[in-house]
């Protein structure tokens, strides 16, 4: 539309309606042919109490979105067949005659939005609302900008504050390193076979007690994840297990073998330190070029999905051929040592996306990789039996257990392409034998394996996580069987994700429960009922979270964060929330308004129509202390021993502001995110001596 273009006049509107009505004798509740009596009459017309033209919007014209008046008008709704003209209260307009074309309806809408001009007057439409007044700039030099906490720093361990299980793909390197340290500590405990916390003993719990194919599947694993997480926290306080959202686009669920396959952080790679040691140890020594190439792998942090890919790269690309798949091959052992040393989340007995004869999971196993759409369908189930599994008399698989869960075990476990071979057979490699892949060759046998997974696992004789075990060349990955699955660290992020999907579903179906709520989940002494709520387990799910410590020492008048680098992949969220952590009771009431990417925002910054405005909370003031000394002190995080008095009235609280819409707008322009919180008192002026808080975080949720 061009500036100044004249909108259509009343005559045109009348002509359109006349033609559509034809010779219909509809009475329009006594109004008759209400459009024929001039522009003013049409503007005032009503049929059965419905105004044909809505009154003009009130308020500032510049703020009202265009087309609101026509959209609210009965005439336009009626011509479009929208409620109340959808056939229930009234049929679509016109009554009798024929339908008005969409473009003609648009013309009439235009006429209404132009103020219903008749033939003699025309109203120019203001098409480019004036630039908004330039915002008042305040000097921000005196306002400190708060930085995001060192990665991996967990906000706080205060009572009442859940910790966040995050998406493994949005974790920073520092957070991942912390996770790897935690796993190493549990591996190290394997030296004390009687220590229940050791990795092997934890994995044995799964081997001996795990519940699948019925209703205890989800509750049991919730308890299992919790114990493992607590063990990690013995060594890395506040460390939380991450989840792997395996349906994200980078995994390309429609053709998953072409996607990421498993999270990058769990793939094989060499650190520079490990690579140095490795090249010195290899015998025969690699050539100078080969050494350089290996060191480059480390420097460039080249990732390999499985050991097969790594060894083939070594043999065919780098050209170091003194290695065979034989478990006793010394060079191979050195190489595996180096990979294990580099990444505690990598596991040698894991052959993701590798199936017999080079086939796909669909061809060989007849399972398909789960997509986001699949999960949506599963979330739409309405009873626990179908979602999570049947009860003891009806031991039936739930959909969550059967497809995404079983499939992810099979997907990450895979079938070892090197098993029993004397030499590495690599695609397009010099030692390739030239055999054609036969996807269907092993189907029958493998199907039998899938069905009776337990028979497939050769548990006897293995010393889990012993070097001899990690060098071995079994036919199937450890994730393939539930007896061995949790020896592979990839087990945890998969199951955390399953637990997260259950939690999402629980929120949708709060009354859909397993049948036997009193059943004890061995080997713990908790019951199914105890697992229904995640709050007592002390965690929540967020995609990613950024915490900015402030400290309770001094009040802040205005909080401005430094720009927060939110990874590109993490910007596709459903909900964004700013949280004010551990706010003690305030003397006076106030509002806190949140702005995104508007660091200069202050009490007079407009909130209506301001795309940077995220939302507000109001905090009710506690008033002056009427008690004696210490009455309004902030209580300690943990009460004194034997202090059984009720919760202190001054216990700090967390406050949340939903900033979803503003955050989505902020990301539209790309770039980092900056949070401004403005504290505003009852007089609508900024309050500089009031708000205290432990820190501010922004979390993005699925």
């Amino acid at each position, binding site marked *: 539309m061009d500036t100044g273009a004249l909108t259509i006049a009343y005559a045109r509107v009348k002509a359109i309606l006349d033609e559509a009505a034809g010779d*219909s*004798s*509809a*009475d*329009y*509740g*006594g109004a008759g042919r209400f459009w024929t009596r001039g522009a003013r009459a049409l503007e005032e017309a009503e049929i*059965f*109490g419905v105004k044909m033209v809505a009154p003009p919007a009130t308020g500032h014209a510049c703020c009202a979105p265009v087309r609101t008046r026509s959209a609210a008008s009965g005439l336009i709704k009626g011509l479009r067949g929208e*409620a*109340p003209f959808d056939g229930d*209260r*009234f*049929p679509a307009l016109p*009554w*009798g005659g024929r339908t008005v074309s969409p473009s003609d309806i648009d013309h009439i809408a235009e006429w209404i939005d132009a103020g219903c001009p008749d033939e003699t007057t025309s109203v120019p439409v203001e098409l480019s609302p004036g630039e908004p007044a330039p915002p008042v700039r305040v000097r921000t030099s005196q306002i400190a900008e708060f930085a995001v906490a060192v990665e991996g720093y967990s906000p706080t361990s205060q009572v009442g504050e859940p910790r966040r299980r995050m998406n493994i793909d949005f974790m920073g390197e520092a957070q991942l390193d912390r996770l790897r340290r935690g796993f190493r500590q549990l591996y190290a405990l394997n030296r004390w076979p009687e220590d229940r916390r050791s990795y092997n003993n934890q994995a044995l719990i799964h081997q001996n007690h795990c519940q699948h*194919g019925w209703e205890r599947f989800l509750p049991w694993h919730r308890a299992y994840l919790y114990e493992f997480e607590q063990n990690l926290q013995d060594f890395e306080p506040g460390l939380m297990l991450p989840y792997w959202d395996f349906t994200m686009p980078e995994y390309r669920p429609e053709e998953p073998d072409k996607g990421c396959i498993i999270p990058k952080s769990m793939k094989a790679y060499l650190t520079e330190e490990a690579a140095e040691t490795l090249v010195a140890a290899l015998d025969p020594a690699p050539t100078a070029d080969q050494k350089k190439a290996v060191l480059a792998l480390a420097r460039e942090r080249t990732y390999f999905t499985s050991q097969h890919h790594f060894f083939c790269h070594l043999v065919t690309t780098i050209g170091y051929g003194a290695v065979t798949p034989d478990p006793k091959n010394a060079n191979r052992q050195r190489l595996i040592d180096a990979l294990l040393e580099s990444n505690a989340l990598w596991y040698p007995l894991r052959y993701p996306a590798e199936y017999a004869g080079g086939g796909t999971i*669909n*061809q060989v196993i*007849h*399972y*398909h990789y*789960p*997509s986001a*759409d*699949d*999960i949506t*369908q*599963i979330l*739409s*189930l*309405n*009873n626990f*039996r*179908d979602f999570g*599994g*049947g*009860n003891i*008399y*009806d031991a*039936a*698989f*739930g*959909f969550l*257990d*059967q*497809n*995404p869960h*079983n499939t992810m075990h099979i997907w990450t476990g895979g079938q070892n392409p090197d098993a029993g071979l004397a030499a590495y057979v690599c695609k397009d490699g010099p030692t390739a034998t030239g055999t054609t892949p036969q996807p269907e060759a092993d189907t029958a046998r493998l199907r039998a394996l899938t*069905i009776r997974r337990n028979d497939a696992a050769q548990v006897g004789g293995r010393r889990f996580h012993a070097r001899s075990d990690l060098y071995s060349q079994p036919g199937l990955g450890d994730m393939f069987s539930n007896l061995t699955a949790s020896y592979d660290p990839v087990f945890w992020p998969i199951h955390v994700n399953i637990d997260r999907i259950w939690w999402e579903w629980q929120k949708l179906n709060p009354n859909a429960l397993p*049948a036997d709520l009193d059943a004890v989940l061995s080997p713990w002494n908790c019951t199914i009922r105890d697992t229904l709520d995640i709050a007592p387990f002390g965690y929540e799910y967020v995609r990613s979270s950024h915490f900015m410590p402030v400290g309770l020492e001094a009040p802040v008048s205005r909080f401005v964060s430094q720009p927060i680098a939110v990874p590109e992949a993490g910007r596709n969220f459903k909900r964004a929330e700013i949280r004010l952590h551990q706010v003690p009771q305030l003397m006076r009431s106030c509002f806190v308004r949140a702005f995104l990417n508007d660091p200069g925002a202050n009490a007079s910054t407009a909130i209506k129509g301001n795309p940077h405005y995220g939302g507000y909370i109001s905090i009710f003031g506690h008033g002056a202390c009427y008690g004696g000394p210490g009455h309004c002190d902030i209580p300690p995080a943990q009460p004194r021993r034997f202090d059984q008095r009720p919760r202190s009235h001054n216990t700090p609280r967390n406050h949340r502001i939903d900033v979803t819409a503003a955050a989505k707008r902020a990301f539209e322009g790309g770039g980092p995110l900056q949070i401004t919180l403005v504290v505003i008192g009852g007089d609508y002026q900024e309050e500089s001596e009031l708000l205290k808080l432990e820190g501010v975080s922004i979390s993005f949720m699925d």
Partner: protein
Amino acid sequence: MYRIHPGIGIARLGNSETDFYLAPETPAALPQACDSFGNPLYGPDGVAPVPVKTFKDSQGRVKRQGARFQIVVYDESSPEGRPLAIGDPVEGGGNHGVLVDIQWRVYVANKKASWYPFSELKGEHGYAPDSPRRNSDITGQDRDLLIIDPGPRSVNAITDRRAHFDRSGGPGAYATTFPPKGLQPFDIDTLGEMMTDDKGRLVVLGGYGRSGMDVSGFGEPKIEDYANTDGWYDDISDGPVMARLVMYSEQVGQNRYVDVEFPAWVVVGYPRFAPQILDMITMDEMLHDLYVRRFATETGIYGILGTFDDPQQIPFRDEVALRHWQAGRLAWNRNYRPWFYRDIWPILFRPDEFRYLNDILQQSNYPHDQAQRGTFDPNKLSQTPRRGAPRPEVETPPEAALRDASQGEAVVQVALATGPARHVEPEDPYGPMRRFLFDLLRRAGEANSFQVQDRASSRIHSLPLMPLLCGDNPLTNETPSKFLHLTEYQLFILGQWARGWFINEKEEGWLPAGYSPFEPYPTPPPKTGHELDRGVLSNVLGGAFCPGAEIGWVMRNPSIYWAPYRINADRSISDFLQSAAQANQFQGSVIADYTFSVQSPLSQDNDFEAGLQPGDLTKYMALPWQSDFNECTTQPINITYADWNNLWPGSDNDKRLRLDERTWTTLWWPAHRPLQSFEIASIDNGQPNYVWATWSRGVPQTPAGDLKMVTEWSRLGFIVRNPYQPGAKSADDLTYKYISVERS
């Protein structure tokens, strides 16, 4: 999302072992003819269903009515749903593929003999502890034997297309429970059967109408009561209907399975002997009213004051939101305008139809006459107040309570009539006629009022309130409810109409060409699952419930629903043996249902929280059904005192009371239990001569007659629109509108 529709399907008994037809799916329609596999017959256009031609088979036995169920898919492209057909793409549970088969599972039972005796309204809000049961001499686990439990059966669309609810236990060899052999006069060996038609739809048939007593000896069998006689069994039943879709997944080269959202329910009733005449309140209308008022289904019509223009959306399953809504200031939208021909006339049309079903109206002055001089002439009742000259509009404030038009407006009319001024406003000549009809209607709270006696100024003084039909309890002094009243929704729209606040579609040009007010019900087959739900139930009795016809007052208990028109099924009983995910895991779904999931026998009690079990809807009805069916013709209702059904002047030797005592012989529900009808006596020169005769002649209204009805019901005639007076003629031309045929 896949759903079975109708949510509640209606099968009907018949003693023909071979022939059946399909339940009508629009109001007052004839059943649909089908072949012996349940495939409907279509007219030349291939779309319009062919109505059934005869209600009895070649041996004069009553054909059964099949309840047909189909699957409707709801997705973004069809939010109102569209039928699902074999070959369509389907998805669910994380799989997608092409529909290759549908498995259906039905579990019906009859719990009548183990339930409480029907005792009017006792039990509607729970039974007192220690309330006696039917057959109370049978105790302990023996009571399980009183439930007729054939176990569940499954069929599919390809290999196993038929199954019987018989003593065999089916392919899963379920240990069934049936009454002992040797019942008098009839043994019960089956509750019916199920089959799939060529399109994979399910057809469920009920029993043969065989009732029998497990007592022998002199004077046995006998019936002692209209609703309860110990020792009897009948083959009525009801229960959940579940479906599982089988898809072939190209992606993984195998079949995958997914269940529909929730089970549907099948109810078996007795034959509908006057299928083209609707009851004064249908089950659909009763439920619609319940859902509107309790479950916020039409918040633009009934909702919180001030929200009508922007109606609230309250999810049915959100209990907290619903409770919050119910706690609000709920009211009817006084600005809502019902449509005369869509909403109002189909109610007003009905009472005159009853004149073809009983002497009381046939021999009267035709109080509901729709002819030109009648009180119910649609051409007069449809006229809106003229709006030529703008009147000073007195806007009804939305906060105003729903005013009782019978008082205010009638008084105004009387005042006008007695004064010197005109008594009819020229712009609304038929306003007094509308208000008179509305004023005569019995409101909620007037269930025990026969007439308005104490307001001599009222135009309806001394006239009986309408409808003049029996209520839920005209029998005892405990919670009496003598007369029927229309639903709140019906009264609301009729009130709007009475005050002129309605739309005449004729004036607005909305009626299709050829519309006749004498065929007022919609005839196009239902397009959506919701329309199918409603259409099927429009042919089921919606009151009064004493105990009713097909199903009774349990239907108005909000606690038994999972969603509108969907019974909350106990899914441990209703669902397939294996979960669909289990079928995926083991690459096959067990069609022979071994039901080891049933860990305990069908319950003797209710558990609405867990859901309903097979037999839980029909157990409230009379046993055997023939006894109540036979006696529900007329009831002499004692109208001496509003709150008393039974007076005993003899106890005080009270002569005054004896003289004061008055009764009114009141009809029950003639459309479900006709009393008299026209029959063709002879045909001269191709023109029939008619005789007005008692429909169930030879069967008296006594317990002995009830016993006769056990064997005689299948000989009764079916009352249909007279083929010699076809078409939508004006009311003046329809002397013999309905006639009874096929008496055998």
